[in-house]
């Protein structure tokens, strides 16, 4: 009787240990990540929150007074075109644009007519997309740019759900990219060639910043409406003029999209067409 009851007890104990292991086992990755992060600060675990001292804080300023959506040129928006060509962004089966990393939206003005709103990734300081990534594939680099490690991304699209600006895109199938894309060397700062089943987005031309070049959309804008600069150095340029960033923003009543959400975007807009100054009302006008 006695050995038997011990057997049961042992069995139940084993069950208990097994159960506890099963309960704890899923916590292992978190612990591993912690250890990993202590060793080498990699992409995983960065939360996008600003740290005390930053190397750079790249920002974009878009002057809505100047942007006419390239309608006076009678052409497609040149910033979008430059972006798609410059990054070899995958197109649809017939070459149509499916991923407009910078998209020029058309809004009706209260007094009639339209104004145009170019929207790239807002490069939020408190980026909701980075917060929700389950594998740390989305991260903020030390220059404040939100990037994606496409070799790690599992394609769950939680980041797309989290982005309040819908600025993330997905390679749904085998990306239809130009032949020369195959020769590029992949890095999150220039994520070419593109990988099926992963999320992509505007990267503020992170590959260009190292070489002292402006983002391709800034280069491509015929109206010089887009400024690119660094908050730390307090300077920005639209390739024809150089401005003192903080004063420039204050003087022109700069605002950011959906500021009330607390995402702290690094893309500023200068109003001036008579559009609402703050807290844009993006309620869609029914066609």
């Amino acid at each position, binding site marked *: 009787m006695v050995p038997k009851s011990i057997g049961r007890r042992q069995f139940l104990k084993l069950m208990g240990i097994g159960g506890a292991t099963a309960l704890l086992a899923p916590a292992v990755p978190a612990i591993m990540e912690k250890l990993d992060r202590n060793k080498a600060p990699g992409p995983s675990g960065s939360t996008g929150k600003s740290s005390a001292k930053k190397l750079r804080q790249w920002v974009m300023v878009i002057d809505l007074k100047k942007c006419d959506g390239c309608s006076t040129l009678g052409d497609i928006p040149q910033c979008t075109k430059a972006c798609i060509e410059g990054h070899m962004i995958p197109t649809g089966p017939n070459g149509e644009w499916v991923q407009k990393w910078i998209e020029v939206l058309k809004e009706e003005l209260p007094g009639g007519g339209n104004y145009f709103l170019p929207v790239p990734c807002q490069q939020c300081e408190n980026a909701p997309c980075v917060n929700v990534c389950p594998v740390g594939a989305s991260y903020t680099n030390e220059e404040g740019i939100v990037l994606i490690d496409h070799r790690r*991304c599992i394609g769950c699209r939680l980041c797309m759900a989290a982005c309040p600006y819908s600025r993330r895109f997905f390679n749904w199938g085998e990306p239809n990219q130009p032949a020369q894309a195959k020769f590029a060397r992949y890095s999150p700062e220039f994520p070419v060639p593109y990988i099926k089943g992963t999320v992509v987005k505007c990267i503020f031309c992170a590959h260009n910043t190292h070489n002292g070049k402006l983002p391709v959309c800034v280069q491509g804008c015929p109206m010089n409406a887009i400024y690119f600069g660094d908050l730390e150095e307090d300077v920005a340029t639209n390739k024809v003029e150089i401005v003192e960033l903080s004063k420039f923003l204050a003087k022109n009543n700069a605002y950011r999209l959906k500021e009330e959400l607390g995402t702290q975007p690094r893309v500023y807009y200068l109003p001036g067409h008579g559009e609402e100054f703050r807290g844009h009302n993006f309620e869609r006008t029914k066609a």
Partner: protein
Amino acid sequence: MMKMSSKNSLESTVLQPILKVGKGYTILALFLLSVVLLGVFAFLTQLSQGLAATAMRDKIFWGIYIVNFVFFIGISHAGTLISAILRVTNAGWRTPITRMAEMITVVAIMVGATQILFDQGRPDRIFNLFLYGRYQSPLVWDLLSISTYLVGSCMYLYLPLIPDLALCRDRLAGQASRFKLAIYRVLAVGWTGAPEQKKLLERAISVMAIIIIPIAISVHTVVSWVFSMTLRPGWNSTLFGPYFVIGAIFSGIASIIIVMAIFRKIFHLEQFLEEKHFLKLGTLLAVTNLAYIYFTLAEYLTMGYKLAGEDKELLTMLFAGSQAPAFWAFLVLGLFVPLFMVVNKKTRNIPGLVVASALVNVGMWIKRFVIVVPTLQVPLLPFDVGIYRPTWVEWSLTAGSFAGFALLFMLFARIFPIMSIWEVREELETEKEKETEKVIEVPAQPQPKWTEVFPAKREEAR
């Protein structure tokens, strides 16, 4: 004598399907298998083409895989409610139902978790969740919670199964296949039914019954948080956790009623699964139905009263726009009609309850669709969003998932007793004892004092 005969018929009725089933059973299993194979083919297609094979695109980037995920994880709450909550509250009528309920839980979690795999752009990298998992991500909360729930539910299914496995080992020797007998022998872990063993088992079961309840609540809470941790209209809600949990229990009860009715019919369990069991579950269905109506009201009224920009667009779409048919179908056919059927005397019977439960489950699937898709149709900036019409790949994977759910259930029922024989027997015995007590007591004391009758009555009421 009575006791002996009911005991034997209990055993033989429940063990019968393990030994032999009718032709219809095999045909149904083959049919379900073919649907599962269709799902496998669809998944292979999706693997080669990527998620481009679905109708999901950049703006509406989640579709019916996520709907199915929430749906299956929802009905997995069936087991927890019936076997844990009713066990903790000592509701004796639960005994013939617990096994099926726990089985729903285990199978539904497995099928539900698979939906997440279907939805990944890179299912081949799913192990990155273990390699690089970040505890800040709601998806990792899901992973932790659901895997814990699966392990806990398997244990909770297994523990009360031990005495029945021993019974199968002893009774079916020489009758069942060698393979099955080997399973029984190993899994019965030398159960003899000694009082010592019984005590330990009872203790283990009651510990698990208590542990599993908070785990189950956490599961559907974190499932809802995948949505409510985002800044999107209709998802950005503090109510979502409890709203999802109630919805899960609601659809779980409906699932049990359907599963019970099916097994009652095909395995001839009418003697044990009586109408009273259905009516009691019907009451629970009505209670959770009312709770869900309350939560739905709380959710949409607080949004609809203020009509903040994006919320307004969402509610217009739901109440009168493109998604109105789905929304009203859920509200009327999924909530009010079933409630009416449970309350109404004419339909408060087994067929009525089964129809009501089927409506509830269809309604709750639609509700999950209404949660996932319309929110994504609300443009966050002024652009066109497009429409979402699931492709054949998505529908096939959905059909395959439902067929797989049923098939796993049928397979289980061919190996393990679908009803907890020992618990039902104990319950029958206690019921008999009470009856005999009453019969003896009443003539012995024609005018008993209330103090003597009351405890007996109280026992009976339990």
